[in-house]
């Protein structure tokens, strides 16, 4: 019994040190550029978007009438938004070793630029944008979308 009690903390420490413990909420992307009014809304709480702020799956990203924002995601997808725009990162999975590849963005309004990354290279059907009137399937491209 005693050796077990001693071993457990070392096992946990070992896992932490080797980084095998994966956090459940790994960020999907990072804000790289921002101008004017731009917000990230997470679980209903808005915060002003700043350079290097993390973007998680489930986050809404929104710009005001003078706002613009640019983000880079883990798979290299580059998403940038002009003024009066709003999107939500509905699904983001980038784990190629486990063949888990998915990037679904829902766009509500405004102008957004999407430059595909590795998800579409590894899974052509893996990235799409949903708008109120259409589904946009990106097959390794640079695509501009306007919803009004």
């Amino acid at each position, binding site marked *: 019994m005693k050796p077990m009690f001693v071993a457990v903390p070392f096992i946990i420490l070992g896992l932490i040190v080797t980084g095998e413990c994966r956090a459940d909420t790994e960020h999907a992307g*990072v804000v790289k550029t921002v101008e004017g009014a731009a917000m990230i809304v997470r679980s209903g709480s808005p915060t002003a978007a700043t350079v290097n702020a993390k973007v998680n799956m489930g986050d809404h990203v929104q710009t005001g009438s003078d706002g613009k924002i*640019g983000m880079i995601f883990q798979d290299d997808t580059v998403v*940038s938004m*002009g003024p009066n725009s709003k999107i939500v990162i509905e699904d983001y999975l980038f784990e190629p*070793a486990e063949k888990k590849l998915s990037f679904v963005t829902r766009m509500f309004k405004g102008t957004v630029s999407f430059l595909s990354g590795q998800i579409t290279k590894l899974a052509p059907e893996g990235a799409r944008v949903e708008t109120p009137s*259409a589904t946009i399937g990106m097959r390794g491209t640079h695509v501009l979308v306007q*919803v009004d």
Partner: protein
Amino acid sequence: MPNMNSKSHVHREGVTIWKALGLMPVLVFLIVVLGCGKRTMVVLLPDPDGTTGQVIVSNPVGSVTMNSPNQATSTASARTAPKSPVVMEEEAIQSIFSGALEIQPKPPLHFLLYFREETTLTSASSGLIPEILQAIQERDSTDISVVGHTDTTGNKEYNMDLSRRRAAAVQSLLLENGVQPDHVKTTSHGEENPLVKTGDNVSEPKNRRVEVVVR
């Protein structure tokens, strides 16, 4: 009698007006919910390397595929098919999308470091470390990923571990040179994400690599 008529006439008009007003919120709600008034326009641009990919725009009513630069398609609503693509003028594209395009960040910088065997970098690849450090400095990057890979020789479990050790070796080099630990994320892809597709158990030096991405 005339008074009564005019009264009921006004009363009827009044009810109609109130009825119409009452329906407005319902209509607005329906429009918002059904997205009837939300037009979508999609424009396909060439990639930074000059090639053009493909985009498919679809809804329950129709579908359009575009694969030429500056092609654009509009979809008026969820109940209208996407229109046949037309080529859009540069100026028209800029006038609508200048905000989103101006704020577009530079795509991430990728570096490929190769290994002789196990976790020993080739000398050419060791020479890339200063370049990587400079890229991190210049971009003030706080999001750097180090991804380890192997070729298909050996079994999957061994390669998962080898790719992890390769990524760890490169991570150590970066941290030794002052990069903050919480700015670097290491991942191992084992033999699952080859640069050069090969069969199983094929020695391919180009797949024995670590990819460093500086965002």
